[in-house]
Structures are given as C-alpha cells and as structure tokens.
C-alpha cells in the first residue's frame, strides 16, 4: 500500500524542526500543518504578507482582510505580523525562511523543478513559486510519483519549463522519501519506502538515476 495524501503530509511534517519559519504551498503541503508534532513549534509564512498564520476561522470569525496566499480566509495567532509584499519576499529571497514545501509536475535528478506551466495550455502564472525555490533555505516537494497518464515525474531532465534550477532538496511521493543531490552528480537517493512498496516498484516508476543504499 502506497501512502495517501495525508500520510505524505504526515511524513513531510517530520522534517519540521522547532523554531522553523515555514511556507506551505497549495494542496498536499497545506495538509502538513495538520501533522505538526506536539513538541515542535513552527511559524507559517504566507507570501501575501503575513507571518504567523493560524487555522481556518470559525464561521463567526471570518475577516475578509485575513487571507493566505491561496486567497483562503485564515486567522491570526499570538505574534502574527503583517507586512508589504516587498518585505515578504525580502524574507523569502533573503534566505530567512527555513523551509518551503510545495507541489510539482516534474523534478529532475539535479534538483531542477517544473511546476508552473504546460506549453499550449492556459498558464495561470508562477505566483511566488520561483522566488520561494530560489530563496528559501530548504525545498521539499510533495507529489504523486507518476502523472495521470502514467509518466514518471522523477526524471533525468525536466521536459516542462522550469520554476528553478537545482533547487529541490527532498521529494516525498506516495512511494517513499528521496533526497536530491542538487549540488552534485549523485542523483536521487531512496531514503525510505512507503509501507508495502518495493524497491522494484520504485525503480519501475522512476526515470531519474536512482541510488538505493
């Protein structure tokens, strides 16, 4: 049995360290906030200009001026601050955010990431993704291991336009956990298998150079 989306999020949450400032993308990364270990205290950053993002509001708590980068209504926590978009990306680009967890369409064995456009289809824009992967200290991708049409998303080289070059540090898919050697030639190393998944299955579904220790 491969991991569910929630199990992937729970595994990603184990990468959180006490005191981290973290930016979470949309989709599986958002679920990570449900699995923060009890002894770990983190602060969520939202690139539209909020540090200290709380849970979604109760029905009677909704404030239209408090949203996250996905434009969802959220709440404040003790110590929340607001700032301009320029200050927000000073935090991100300036290397002050510890961890970014985001989704991907493709990841290459050198850490290249593609997650913002498919040529020929309507492009919505990269939003803050290019700034995040360029500036945040550590980048973890959570994604399905293969695309809907059965193609591996862990590749030797990305085929889609890039979001960033040599930016991904770790990939968590439904099959397991993988480290990425973004500064060297070692490719992708299998660190952990999801419950009931075999090395052969991972190899069959991975086009990148895969190191199995």
């Amino acid at each position, binding site marked *: 049995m491969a991991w569910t989306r929630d199990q992937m999020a729970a595994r990603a949450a184990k990468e959180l360290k006490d005191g981290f400032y973290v930016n979470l993308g949309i989709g599986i990364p958002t679920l990570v906030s449900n699995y923060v270990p009890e002894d770990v205290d983190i602060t969520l950053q939202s690139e539209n*200009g909020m540090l200290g993002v709380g849970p*979604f509001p109760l029905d009677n708590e909704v404030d239209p*001026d408090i949203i996250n980068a996905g434009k969802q209504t959220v709440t404040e926590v003790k110590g929340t601050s607001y700032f301009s978009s320029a200050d927000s990306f000073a935090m991100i680009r300036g290397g002050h955010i510890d961890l970014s967890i985001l989704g991907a369409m493709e990841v290459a064995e050198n850490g290249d990431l593609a997650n913002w456009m498919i040529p020929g289809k309507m492009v919505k824009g*990269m939003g803050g993704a290019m700034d995040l992967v360029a500036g945040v200290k550590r980048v973890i991708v959570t994604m399905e291991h293969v695309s809907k049409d059965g193609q591996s998303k862990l590749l030797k080289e990305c085929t889609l336009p890039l979001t960033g*070059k040599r930016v991904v540090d770790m990939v968590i898919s439904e099959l397991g956990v993988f480290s990425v050697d973004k500064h060297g030639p070692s490719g992708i190393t299998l660190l952990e298998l999801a419950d009931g998944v075999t090395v052969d299955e991972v190899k069959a579904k991975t086009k990148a150079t895969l190191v199995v220790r």
Partner: protein
Amino acid sequence: MANKVYKDAKSALDGLLRDDLMLMCGGFGLVGIPDRLIEAVRDSGVKGLTCVSNNAGIDGAGLGLLLESGQVRKMISSYVGENKTFAKLYLEGKLELEFNPQGTLAERCRAGGAGIPAFYTKTGVGTLVSEGKEIRNFDGEDYVMERGLVGDIALVKAWKGDTAGNLVYRKAARNFNPMMATAAKICVAEVEELVEVGQLDPDHIHTPAVFVKRLFCGAPYDRKIEQRTIRKA
C-alpha cells in the same frame, strides 16, 4: 497646505486619465484592491491601459471590470488564475500578458519607486523569466537583472488616511499597496476612513504623505471574499 482631499473617485481622477496609461494597482486577490478607483477608470472609458497588478481580479470584480470592458491592452502580473474573462481575452489574442515572479514584481515596483532603475535577483535564473536578460555572477552565484517599474498613476486602497495623505493599511490588505503608492508619477488613494491630519499615530503610518497626491473616502465597502474557508466548531 495644498488640498489633497477629493469627494469621490471620479473627482480624484479628474484630469489624470487618458488612453495608453500604465496603472500600478495595489491588492492581492480581492484584498486591498482599489475598488472605487477601478470603477471610475471603467466609467471614464479610457483604453489601451497597461495594468501592473499581482492578480487580474475575478469576473465582475477588481480589474476584471476593466478586462470585461476591453480597456486593458496589457497585464503585468504574477498569477491570473481566477479570471475566466482574462483567459478568454488572452486566448483570443486580445490581451498582452507579462508574467513576473511575485517577489520580482514587488521588488520592481519598490525599486522603481525608490529611484533604482535595475537590480539583480536569483529568482528565475535558468528559467523562461531570465531569457534575454543580463545574467551576472556575484560570489559564485548567478543573478538576473530586472528593471525597476514606474507607472503613470498608482491606484491604492488603504484602511485609514488623514487629510495630509498619510496611509494605514489593515492586516493582509497591505500587500502590494505600499510599493505601488511609490511607483508612479502620481498616486491616488481611496480609504475606508478619512481623518483629520494629526489623528493617526505617527509611529503607525505605513505610507507617508509625500507619496500620496490625492485621496478620498470610498466608504461604505463590502469586503469581498474569494475563498471563504472555515473550520467546524
């Protein structure tokens, strides 16, 4: 002191609008967007506009109004996902689009407003964004040169303003507004509450009066919500 206070959006924009202007618009999604000013631009009928704004509004709100009326020639944005009118116009070839990474867009406006014509960033190096732009290596890492942006008119929305033009934003409605206020030849602000000069705490002012040339109270506002997301009690 020169009077900066106008009675409404139409009078605040009087004499400023013409075809082919570049408008710098504050806001993120529907939060902190200059609703009244956008409506007044629509009513003026000026065309060929270039709008610099993180998003393109949604159908029936924000810059969506100017897209529907065919007044926008080009958008410079980081994300335009929520707008069906936008997609239709773009796919029909009726709208130019320049995508900027969100942080690069914010910094282009900040730099432009601060008199800085260009800067280097590592955002977008090795992607489509850096094609055709100068790449320079600093301390072993590649950076791409991006240009500062200065438009013709900045349209911003604040929570409170005083009669001198000092502005205070509310919560996440600050977003792009402070940079946009600096990054144009003239800035027009709409506020939810207009107070006499001296009534805002000087330590709490986000945009100092020097940047704001005209302002008016646009109340009452019904703050719109794009993605109302709640948890159960």
